[in-house]
């Protein structure tokens, strides 16, 4: 499988009053064609900003200050805005966390699907295509839903419509930013199944952003674990789930509730993600149970542990 997207040393910083917030700091990963790649981590670790950086839609006052985003060999960060507009929605589709707020309340669902198509292609019978798309993403009574407004649809149906919009121009990459977080558990499974079905049928690559380890195990091929703007560990799902190396990954996996075991209390990681981590040293150091002196002094380099399993931790340095 060849590489579709290669993010290299991406840095996205936010200039805020209290200083520079390094939301994404030196992040690198590759996504192969037809693969589901997961970006995992707690809230605020920079997963969503990484996704928005790929789309070049980082909100103000954020700014991409360094790195490369090679999409099919072309550095997206060097493209003029008009060229980027031809890639957004056509070659890279994106769905968002909250389907309730991701559709424009003033236009019908059908209109919004058509807009997505017409922004990139001149098609006369666009309404038929739009209805077919709604059918394809499993919206029942698609002809009726086509004419309805977003507020008339349930969360699950809205997210299906969003997926329909995202895949309307058969993109090569689908970025899904916590697509199931705002949905009921039963609907979550349906949405995940739908995305995996699209991967099977269209060979689309998926960048799935989530904090749900269960979802990672179910849907992903490879994953990267992010902490405070940095990737701490990456590798295949099998490798990382069977042999997690970074103390943070281990802690994350311990937090997953086990229905087969009778536990008194849910496990959590003490402390919170630092907003302004120190410039040098490991960012997880103050929450890590296994710190050494060097953890506070030097930033750990990424180490290759074989089979594409890489970890950034002094324990393996």
């Amino acid at each position, binding site marked *: 499988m060849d590489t579709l997207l290669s993010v290299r040393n991406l840095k996205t910083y936010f200039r805020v009053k209290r200083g520079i917030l390094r939301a994404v700091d030196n992040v690198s990963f590759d996504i192969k064609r037809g693969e589901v790649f997961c970006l995992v981590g707690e809230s605020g670790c920079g997963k969503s900003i990484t996704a928005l950086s790929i789309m070049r839609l980082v909100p103000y006052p954020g700014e991409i200050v360094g790195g490369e985003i090679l999409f099919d060999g072309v550095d997206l960060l060097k493209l003029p805005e008009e060229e980027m507009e031809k890639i957004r929605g056509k070659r890279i589709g*994106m769905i968002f966390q909250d389907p309730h707020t991701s559709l424009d309340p*003033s236009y019908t669902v059908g209109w919004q699907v058509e807009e997505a198509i017409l922004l990139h292609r001149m098609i006369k019978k666009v309404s038929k295509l739009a209805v077919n798309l709604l059918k394809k993403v499993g919206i029942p009574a698609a002809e009726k839903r086509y004419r309805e*407004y977003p507020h008339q649809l349930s969360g699950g149906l809205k997210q299906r419509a969003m997926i329909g919009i995202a895949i309307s121009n058969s993109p090569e990459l689908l970025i899904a930013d916590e697509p199931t977080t705002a949905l009921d558990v039963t609907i979550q499974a349906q949405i995940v199944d739908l995305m995996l079905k699209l991967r099977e049928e269209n060979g689309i690559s998926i960048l799935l952003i989530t904090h749900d380890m269960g979802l990672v195990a179910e849907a992903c091929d490879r994953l990267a674990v992010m902490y405070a703007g940095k990737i701490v560990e990456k590798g295949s799902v099998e490798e990382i789930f069977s042999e997690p190396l970074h103390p943070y990954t281990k802690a994350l996996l311990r937090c997953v509730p086990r229905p087969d075991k009778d536990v008194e209390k849910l496990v959590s990681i003490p402390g919170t993600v630092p907003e302004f981590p120190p410039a040098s040293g490991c960012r997880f150091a103050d929450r890590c149970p296994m710190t050494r002196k060097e953890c506070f002094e030097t930033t750990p380099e990424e180490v290759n542990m074989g089979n594409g399993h890489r970890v950034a931790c002094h324990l393996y340095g």
Partner: protein
Amino acid sequence: MLGYVARRVAMAVPTIFAVATILFFIVRMVPGDPAVYLLGDMATPERVANLRAEMGLDKPLYQQYIDFMLGVLRGDFGRSFENGMPTMVRVLRAFPFTFELAVAGTLLSLLIGIPLGVAAAVRRGSKIDVLITSGTTIGVSIPVFWLALLLIEFFSVRLGLLPVTGLGNNPIERLRHLALPAFSLGIGMVATVARMTRSSMLGVLGKDYITAVRAKGAPWNVTVYKHGLRNAIIPVVTVVGLNFGYLLGGTVLVEYVFGRPGLGSLLIEAVFSRDYPQIQASVFFFSAVFMAVNIFVDILYSFLNPKIRYG
């Protein structure tokens, strides 16, 4: 939809009656006797008494009130003390001039205010934003009559570009005559519209669906107008609609300064001469229009906001 309109109209009926009642008593609380005004200070008490009887002012207050309300029900607002013409006829003749002025003022405020608001919102925090925001603060605070005088001084007296008073007798002249009054009337609302558009637009541009539209590949300007303004305009329409009623009230001053005929001039004249039936008819009409505009705005609102239409 039709049921909704009918409901709204039905709800307006009690309000209209309350307005009529309050109006009747307020008018009679104003000091000054219409008969004395018409006949002058030198008139004999007998003549005054005769005229009062003719006007129906000698009857007990409750009887006058009942007569007035029965008249309202029949659509009969009595005749003007001044010249004996049916008061409503005078109102209806004057109204088109006022309506023209209020519409022109509103259009002007939308035409200037919306682009200003959008420009300020899109370039938030920039010099343009600061300029527009502070400029509109001044705009809000300018008294209409003072601005009107300044405009006359500058455009008519110094530059000689625009006429001061009158209406004009062909369409182009008419527009030229409308320019200054409409501007004086609309400038306060430009500020309101611009600030409303700015804040509403800022709220909308921060919404997830704006990012989602950009993620579809829409250029920034398409996103701003098709999705941003489309959603941001809803509260602006409400404010403008409600302000249209106040604008009608504002015409009183503007018409007076520019010597234009209209409801405002008619009303001022009637107040000066204590022409009770004429005041009653004019204010009643103002209130009715105000309420009609409110109902219209609600209907318009439901067209702009699908959630209300189908909710």
